[in-house]
Each structure stands twice: as C-alpha cells, then as structure tokens.
C-alpha cells in the first residue's frame, strides 16, 4: 500500500491518522501542511491552548543549540584564560641549592654538554641554582673561553 492510499484509509479514524503521521514523521521530515491542524482537532480544549507545534520546538531547539555553542566557546575561552593565569600565578617551586662558584661552573659545563643551546635561566631552573649566581658563573665561563652565546 502506498502512502497516499494509506492516508485515505487512515483518515477514517483519528487513531489511524495519528499513526499515519507518526510513521511518516519517523521516516522523513516532510510533514504535510495539515499535520498540525489535524493534531489540534484531536486535542482537548485545554491541551489545544498549550499546543506547541514540532516546527516551533525545532526553532526553539535551534535557538538553544546556538546559545549552547556560544556557551561552549565562552567556556573554552575562560578555560584558556584560567590556564594562562595558573601558569603565571602557580609557579613550580624550586628549592635553590647553595653551591660554590667552582661547583656551579662544573655543573653548568656538564649541563651544557648534554643540553647545547640552553638559556641561562633554564639552566638555573634545572640545576636549582640562584639566577644571580648562574649569571655570574656564565660571565666567568665566557671570559675563560669555555662557553659562548649563540
């Protein structure tokens, strides 16, 4: 039985026409023009006042979807800002070691053997040496001709 024939048969009873529309809606989004009118006639007066068509629901869902997308973007933006803030405000704690200049020289030279092209501040962080001490040692090592800047 084709859908048009089925429609003619279904129209004879209210339950039949509702089943017809439900099945049709399940199969495609091509809803007949009289769909909402027929549905409204089947509802009680009280329900008819509160009737919201599927089309209205879809429009509402589309609006909600847009707002949801904007919310997700806003959350993503806030998340990035929070991460940046955390990077700045919660630094990794470094316990500075007290080392002699000679010991620091040895440590820095050894570190540069394994990690060429490193910034002095990164060396200071990794070896847990005071930045001032590191710069003092770097200056001496450059004067001694053991290291050079790139």
């Amino acid at each position, binding site marked *: 039985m084709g859908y048009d024939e089925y429609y003619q048969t279904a129209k004879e009873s209210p339950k039949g026409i509702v089943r017809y529309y439900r099945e049709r809606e399940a199969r495609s989004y091509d809803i007949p023009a009289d769909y909402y009118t027929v549905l409204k006639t089947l509802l009680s007066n009280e329900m008819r006042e509160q009737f919201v068509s599927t089309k209205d629901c879809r429009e509402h869902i589309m609006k909600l979807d847009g707002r949801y997308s904007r919310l997700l973007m806003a959350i993503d933006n806030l998340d990035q800002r929070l991460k940046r803030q955390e990077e*700045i405000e919660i630094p990794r704690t470094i316990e500075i070691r007290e080392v002699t200049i000679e010991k620091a020289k040895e440590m820095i*030279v050894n570190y*540069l*053997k394994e990690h*060429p*092209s*490193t*910034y*002095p*501040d990164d*060396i*200071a962080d990794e070896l847990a040496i*005071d*930045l*001032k001490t590191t*710069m003092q040692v*770097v*200056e001496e090592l450059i004067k001694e*001709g*053991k*290291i*050079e*800047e*790139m």
Partner: protein
Amino acid sequence: MPTYYNLGDAIEGGHIACQFRKIRKIREISERTSRHGGMKTTLDDAYCVITKPLRLK
C-alpha cells in the same frame, strides 16, 4: 657585565629572565594600530637579566 640601579635605567632584549619578590597584576596592552598588543606588569625587588642561548666552545 654592568648592573643598573637608577631611575630610568632600562634593559631591552628578546629574552629577559627575572627573579623577584612580588609581581603585580599582568595587564594586556591593546594598541589601535596593531592587533596583538603586549603585556605589562611591575616587579618588586627584582633582578632582571638579558639571556641568550649558550653552548660549549
């Protein structure tokens, strides 16, 4: 390598390392002429130094 202590003494470099007691709020700078502004802040009791990558000779 000199160290500067006086008002208006400035250092400018591509990579500056700092050690400080306190950092103030970081502000974003937006310039009308450029899309990407920088950032600014103030450090209290700070030691700042220009650094460059090092290698063994």
